[in-house]
């Protein structure tokens, strides 16, 4: 079990619904698929620490992030998680540069593994630094959100429907970026999608949530 990048077994009652997910996933990119409303985003929120499971255990890369039996519940800021939200959540009151550097500045220097310049080149967003988030196109905002997550020195990445707000032309570009993160940066990635087609190009492992 310790060789798995992700080992998740959680249960949460929300309103009348019960969200339960149990899976392990190796390094590389793992897709979580399932119909809309199956609770895929809730599973990511629980891994990131934004939502507390009723019971369960979350281990990522050998680190216990949550364990209801042992009373372990790391706060989000201690989980070293890179989370690209479906709604991106760029800070509207900060320019692109300050969005990108938000997590980078908070990460201890010895934990950082990517420089802001490298990230900007990697994602092709160097020319957007002085822009406000509200002025970005969907594809640009998506790249900035990915860059902000990568620069926060994460040990793993959560991507929530990263292609859903993009037209076909932009999708190819973001898919290429995600493939490079998977291959060159060797980050374990959990990728949520409701479309099988987009997942097939990327995922080493596919897990169905329902």
């Amino acid at each position: 079990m310790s060789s798995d990048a992700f080992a998740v077994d959680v249960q949460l009652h929300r309103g009348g619904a019960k969200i339960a997910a149990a899976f392990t996933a190796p390094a590389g990119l793992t897709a979580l698929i399932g119909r809309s409303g199956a609770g895929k985003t809730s599973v990511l929120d629980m891994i990131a620490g934004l939502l507390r499971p009723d019971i369960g255990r979350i281990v990522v890369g050998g680190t216990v992030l949550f364990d209801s039996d042992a009373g372990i519940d790391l706060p989000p800021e201690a989980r070293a998680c890179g989370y690209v939200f479906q709604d991106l959540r760029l800070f509207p009151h900060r320019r692109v540069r300050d969005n990108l550097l938000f997590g980078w500045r908070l990460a201890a220097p010895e934990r950082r593994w990517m420089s802001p310049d490298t990230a900007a080149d990697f994602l092709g967003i160097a020319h957007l630094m002085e822009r406000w988030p509200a002025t970005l196109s969907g594809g640009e905002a998506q790249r900035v959100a990915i860059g902000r997550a990568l620069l926060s020195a994460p040990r793993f990445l959560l991507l929530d429907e990263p292609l859903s707000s993009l037209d076909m032309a932009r999708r190819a570009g973001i898919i290429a970026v995600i493939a490079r993160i998977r291959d060159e940066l060797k980050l374990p990635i959990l990728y949520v999608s409701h479309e099988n087609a987009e997942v097939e190009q990327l995922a080493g492992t596919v897990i169905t949530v329902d």
Partner: protein
Amino acid sequence: MLTPTEWGIIWLSLKVSAAAMAVTLPVAFGLAYVLARRRFAGWLLLDAVVHLPLVLPPVVTGWLLLLAFGANGPAGRVLATLGISVMFRWTGAALASAVMALPLMVRAMRLSIEGVDRRLEGAARVLGAGRWRAFATVTLPLAMPGVLAGLVLGFARSVGEFGATITFVASIPGETQTLPLAIHDALQTPGGENEVTRLAVVAVLLSLGALLGSELLVRRGRGGVAHVL
């Protein structure tokens, strides 16, 4: 234009209101935050108590302050052990106008805090910010236009305070006689019409400036709070 006495009245009014705002700002923001973000037993009661000065006759608010801060009042006794009395002092006028301004300030600030997208705070947490840093870097800046608007409104309300002040600390020239109290006294004085006019013009200008100022702050805020997507 204005006599030295009238300048003194305006200066006293500004001093009283500035002191009132310095005390009320953190209190109003704390109350606004709690009312916007927390739900607890007694929430409704707290909300009602905060709004009470808005609907209570100001004379009653002043009388309640007298009961609390008078020589035999609970708060008055505590202050007395520190050698402080606010009775018939400008600090008492500041206290009265602070209480009267509080509901307006809490309302404006609460709206702006409720308008802050909590998902952005979650994003800041995941990026490595602790609770306090997420508050300081996301919540506070996004709520700031409303906080400033509340401050300006509260200041204007406090400059105009009359009923609670005159009940609580009377109208003592040079000490507690603020602008509205001075206008009221001048109205009672034969031949005081010119003074009334001059002071009333000052009051109108101060109030108009505050309203325009708070409106501009809120507008500027709306631009900054526009969310992506």
